[in-house]
C-alpha cells in the first residue's frame, strides 16, 4: 500500500505512475493542484497493456509532475515511509511485474538505478504520449520499469506503435526488439567528464560494470566530450519553458484545487496556484517563464532549439563510431535526503547524465545502476547488452 496513491485492483500486476492517466482513478501527478482529478480516459499505454491481460494494481506516488530527483516530493506520499522511487520499489519488491513512468528529466531513470531495477526510456515518438500529464512535450517519454531486460522488451513492444490520438506518434504500427545473446565486438564509449563528476562509490560501480562488459567481449573506450553538459543546459531551458506553459492550465477554474480565498479572478489564479504547487514546480515555472519572455527568448529558448540541432548532429557522429554510451545516472552512490528549496539546482546538476536522451529523443536504459544511451531506435542494442550482463549475474 505504501507505493500507491490508492489501490485500484489488489490482484493487479502492473503499477502506473501518478503522472499517467488511469480512467476513473485519481490522477494528480503527485500535486495538490490536481487534487481529486479523475480522468475520463486511460493513457494509451495503459489501455494496450489491459488489452493484453495486464491489470493496474495502483497509481504509484511520484514527485510533483515528475520533476524532482527521484520522486521524493509527492504531496500524497506518507512522509514516514521511504520517500522516493515508489514504482521502482514496487517492481523491486515483486509487488508488480512492471510499472509505467514518465521520463521528462531523468527522475524515473535515477529512481530505477537507486532501486536496482531496469527502466527503459524509449525513442521519442515510438510510445504514445496520450494520457501523460504532460510537462515538456518535446522530450518527455513514457517508459517501463521491470526487473530485467527481457520483461522490459515484452512490455515496451506492447505499448509502442502508432497512436492517432498523439500527433507526435511515429507512423510505424508496431516495434519489435531483439535480444542477442552475444555482445562480443559491441563498441561502448564512456564519457570522461561524466565519470569525473561522480563519487568514489559510483566510479567503482561503473568500473566494475565495464569489466563485466569487457569480459563478455565488448570494446569499451573512454572519450572526452562536453556534449552531455551542453545538452543539459539546453534541455533545462526547454523543459522549464514547456512545463511552465503546460501546467498553466492548472488555474483553479476547471478542476483540481481552488483557493477558498479570492475576491476576483486574478486572486483566484494567484492564490490557487500559490497553494497548489510545491516549491520545485514554482521554481521551474519561474525559470521557464523567464526564458520565454521577450527580452530573453532569443538568447535562451531560441538558442536552446538551435543547440538541440547541434547536439543531435554531434550525437549521430558519435553513434557512427560506437553502438552506445555507458554512463552513471547519479553522481552519488548513496541517496542523501535534501530540502525542496535546493531541488531545482540539484536536479539541474544531476540531469547532466540524463538530459541528452530527452533533448534529442534517443533511447536510454537503466540496468544494474548504470545507464546506456543509444541511437534512435537502438533499443535492441541496449537491451542485448543489459541482458548479457544480467544473465551472468543470475
Amino acid at each position, binding site marked *: 500500500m505504501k507505493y500507491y496513491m490508492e489501490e485500484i485492483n489488489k490482484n493487479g500486476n502492473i503499477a502506473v505512475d501518478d503522472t499517467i*492517466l488511469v480512467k476513473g482513478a485519481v490522477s494528480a501527478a503527485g500535486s495538490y493542484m490536481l487534487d481529486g482529478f479523475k*480522468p475520463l480516459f486511460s493513457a494509451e499505454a495503459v489501455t494496450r497493456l489491459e488489452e493484453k491481460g495486464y491489470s493496474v494494481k495502483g497509481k504509484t506516488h511520484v514527485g510533483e509532475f515528475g520533476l524532482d530527483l527521484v520522486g521524493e516530493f509527492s504531496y500524497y506520499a506518507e512522509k514516514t515511509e521511504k520517500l522516493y522511487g515508489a514504482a521502482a520499489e514496487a517492481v523491486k519488491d515483486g509487488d508488480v511485474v512492471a510499472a509505467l513512468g514518465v521520463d521528462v528529466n531523468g527522475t524515473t531513470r535515477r529512481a530505477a538505478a537507486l532501486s536496482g531495477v531496469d527502466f527503459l526510456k524509449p525513442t521519442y515518438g515510438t510510445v504514445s504520449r496520450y494520457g501523460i500529464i504532460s510537462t*515538456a512535450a*518535446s522530450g518527455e517519454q513514457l517508459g517501463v520499469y521491470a526487473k530485467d531486460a527481457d520483461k522490459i522488451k515484452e512490455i515496451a513492444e506492447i505499448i509502442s506503435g502508432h497512436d492517432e490520438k498523439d*500527433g507526435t506518434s511515429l507512423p510505424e504500427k508496431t516495434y519489435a526488439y531483439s535480444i542477442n545473446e552475444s555482445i562480443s565486438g559491441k563498441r561502448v564509449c564512456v564519457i570522461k567528464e561524466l565519470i569525473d563528476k561522480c563519487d568514489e562509490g559510483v566510479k567503482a560501480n561503473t568500473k566494475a560494470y565495464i569489466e563485466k562488459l569487457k569480459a563478455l567481449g565488448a570494446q569499451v573506450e573512454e572519450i572526452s566530450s562536453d556534449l552531455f553538459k551542453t545538452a543539459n543546459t539546453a534541455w533545462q531551458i526547454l523543459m522549464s519553458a514547456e512545463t511552465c506553459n503546460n501546467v498553466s492550465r*492548472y488555474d483553479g477554474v476547471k478542476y483540481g484545487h481552488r483557493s477558498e480565498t479570492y475576491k476576483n*479572478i486574478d486572486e483566484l489564479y494567484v492564490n490557487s496556484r500559490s497553494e497548489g504547487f510545491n516549491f520545485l514546480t514554482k521554481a521551474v515555472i519561474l525559470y521557464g517563464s523567464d526564458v520565454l519572455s*521577450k527580452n530573453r*527568448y532569443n538568447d535562451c529558448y531560441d538558442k536552446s532549439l538551435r543547440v538541440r540541432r547541434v547536439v543531435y548532429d554531434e550525437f549521430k557522429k558519435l553513434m557512427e563510431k560506437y553502438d552506445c554510451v555507458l554512463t552513471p545516472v547519479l553522481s552519488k552512490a548513496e541517496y542523501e535526503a535534501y530540502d525542496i528549496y535546493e531541488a531545482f539546482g540539484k536536479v539541474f546538476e544531476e540531469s547532466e547524465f540524463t538530459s541528452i536522451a530527452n533533448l534529442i529523443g534517443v533511447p536510454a536504459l537503466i540496468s544494474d545502476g548504470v545507464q546506456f544511451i543509444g541511437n534512435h531506435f537502438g533499443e535492441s542494442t541496449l537491451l542485448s547488452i543489459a541482458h548479457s550482463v544480467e544473465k551472468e549475474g543470475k
Partner: protein
Amino acid sequence: MNYELVIGLETHVELSTESKIFCSCGGHSAANEPNDCVCPACSGMPGMLPVMNKKVVELAVTAGLMLNCEISRYTTFDKKNYYYPDLPCAYQITQLNHPICTNGTVHLKTSKGERDVRIKQIHMEEDAGKLVHSGNFSYVDFNRTSVPLIEIVTQPDFRSAEEVVTYLSKLKSMFRSGGISECEEGAMRCDVNISVRPEGSEEFGVRTEIKNMSSFEAIEKAINYEAQRHIDALEYETEELVQETRRFDDASGKTFAMRNKETEADYRYFPDANLMPIIIDDEWLEEIKKNKPVAIDDKADKYREEGISEKEIDMILQSQKIGTLLDETIALGCNPKDTAAWILTDCAGILRKDGKTMEDLSVTPEKLSSIIKMVESGSINRNAGKKILIAVVESNVDPVEYCKAQGLDKKVDTAAIGAVLDSVLAANEQAVADYKGGKVKAFQALFGACMRELKGAGDPQMIKEALEEKLK
C-alpha cells in the same frame, strides 16, 4: 489641409468544418446548450493532445489561393500564453513564425476607383470560449473553444471606410461561395488599425487599433469616427494622439481607449511541440487547387457573359449552395440565364410560400435540369414546368413520372386543342352568349374551363388566342 486615411485590417473568420481544429467535437453551431460540444481535449484536461484537422489546412489554403497568396509548404503552430477563464489551457494555439499563406492581393472597385490591397499573411488558430456573467457569478461555455479560425492580415493599404466595407463584402462572398465559411452573424470579426497623415506624406501617423467588431455598419461608423478624431487632433490640437487599443461603442457611435495593460502583455509565444510541422507537398496542393472554386471575379464575369443580371450574380455569390446548384444544372446542358431564373425566382418563390429559405432547398441538379429541358424543348409549357417544380421542391417527386401521371406532357396539337375548345364552347352556350352580348368577364370563365379540360397542357397564350378566334 487635406488628410489621407491609412487603414490595415486583421479579420478573423470562423471556418465551416464539421469538427473543431484539434479534436473531433462538432463545431459550436451544433450546440444547443452551453458546453454541449466539449471534450477533454478542448476543455484543457491533462493528458489530452491536439490532433490536426486536415480540413482546416485545406480551407486555409483555399482561402489563400482565392486571395492570390503564396502557400507555405512548411507551416508550424505556436502557443500564445495568457490567462483568461474562457481559455482552458491558458494558451491559444496559433501561428506566428510560419503562417500558412503570405503575400496575397485583393482587387477592389469602389465609387472612387480601383485598388489592389496587399494581404500580408493568413494564419490558422483556435477560438476561445465565452463567459456568461450572472449576478455574482461568471460561467464558462467552452462550445467555441478550438473552433477553427483563419486570421487574414492586410498591409495598411485601405484609404477609406468604403474600401474596407467593399473588401469585407468581397471576402464574405468569396468565403461563402468557396465553402470556407458561412460568415454568419459574428463569424467574421475585425480589428481595424487606423492612422491619418497629410495628403502626399509618406510617413505614417500615430496608429490606433479598434478591436473586435463584426457588423459592417459598426466598422464603417467606427472608422469614420476615429478618422475624424485623428484629424481633429492634428488640425485643432484637441488632444494628443497615442498608440493604443480602442473599442467602438455602438450606442454612442464613439471609440474609447481600452486598458493599456492588454497592449503591453508579453504573450511569450513559442513553438507547439505537440503539433508536428505540416508539410504541404505538390500532390496535396494540386488536389486542393483542383477542388478550389473559381475565383469570385472570374466567376462573376462568367455569369455576366451568360446574361445573368448583377442582382442575380450577387445572390448566387452569397451562397455556395445556390452557386453549386446553378453550375451543376448548367453543366447538364441547361441555358444559364433560364436556370438562374428557375432557381432564384421560382424555387425561391415556392420556398418563401412555405416559410422556408434557400438554405432549405433540396432539389438536385438532375431533377431541375430535367424540368428545364422539358420546357426548353417545348414538350411542356412553363406553367406545367412550374407545377412539376412545386411537386419536386415540396415532395421530391420524380419530374418525368410526375409529369406523365398528371398528364402534363400531352403533346397537344392545334387541331386537338381546337376540338377541346369546340366541346367547351358547346357545353357553355350561356357563357358564349353572354360574351358575345358584351360581357367581357365571361371570357375568363370560358378560358378557365378550357384550361381545366386541357389539364395544363398547351401554351396558355396560344390557347387564349385560339379561343378569341373562335369567339369572333
